[in-house]
């Protein structure tokens, strides 16, 4: 009986069986891991080139910047003054009408939002929202922040 106890490996077999099951589970998870990696590698996209993610078609701001300059340097239809000058003279209603006319003229091709914000008080003096969803560019004219956001 003592010999049987010495030679019995039942407890050792049970421990080894635990490892067999663990190995099988690890193998399953390993194959799952490789499967997920192969799917992720097929859908690799160009992320983080510019920090916040950059996708085809997204306006990186260069076009919006030039369009903002174009709007500010263009003349209002009613009094031939530049829109930049109208902002400096606080003629915001005139600014709103002129910019709405400009953005409406190109709305089939380009959608833009335009705003003039008072930096001291924080409120919007002009806020034209056409549902654009691109990168916002802005500049300061005196105590005003003038901005444009366009998408195509």
């Amino acid at each position: 009986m003592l010999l049987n106890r010495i030679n019995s490996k039942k407890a050792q077999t049970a421990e080894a069986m635990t490892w067999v099951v663990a190995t099988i589970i690890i193998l399953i998870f390993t194959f799952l891991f490789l499967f997920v990696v192969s799917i992720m590698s097929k859908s690799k996209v160009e992320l983080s080139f510019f920090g916040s993610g950059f996708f085809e078609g997204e306006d990186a701001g260069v076009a919006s910047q030039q369009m903002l300059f174009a709007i500010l340097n263009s003349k209002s239809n009613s009094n031939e003054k530049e829109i930049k000058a109208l902002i400096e003279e606080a003629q915001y209603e005139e600014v709103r009408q002129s910019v709405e006319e400009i953005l409406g003229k190109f709305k089939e091709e380009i959608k833009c939002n335009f705003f003039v914000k008072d930096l001291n008080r924080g409120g919007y003096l002009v806020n034209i929202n056409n549902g654009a969803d691109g990168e916002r560019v802005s500049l300061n004219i005196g105590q005003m922040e003038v901005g444009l956001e366009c998408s195509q």
Partner: protein
Amino acid sequence: MISKKGDERLLSFYWIVIFVIVTIAVVSAVVIFSSAPLDIRGIEASLLSDSLINCVSENGRIKEVFYSWDNTKSLEQVCNLYLKDMAYLDESATNQYFVAVRFEGREIKAGNDLLEPMCNAAESEKNIPKCNEKKLFLLDKEGKLILIKITSAIRKIEKNAVE
């Protein structure tokens, strides 16, 4: 005394097996992921369009040089563009790019003309040039706002072919 020699050898074997499996898994995952192709032609085309926008416009106005365009000028010279891919060793190095600026009925182009018609090829989205079109409005020389279209296309199909 119960001998545990067999027990330790058995467990060591499984430790080694698991170690090898995990190592192979990690190495395989890295190889699979990093060897997958990454097509950045879309970004490249967009950056090329941005370069052209910076070249064509200044403070919201179209530069005068684009009104007096003639055959003696080229977009590559005026805009400091180098439309060659030196990874190609033969004459196809110059056929990989196409750029165009269009406004008020004028059209100024450079590069391989044949790429643009393939841009929106309906039959397949695989193995065709990647294109980018940007539109913006700028002031013309009369102070009137007009629409400009900037188009760029990048071929490089051999390096980005989808099987």
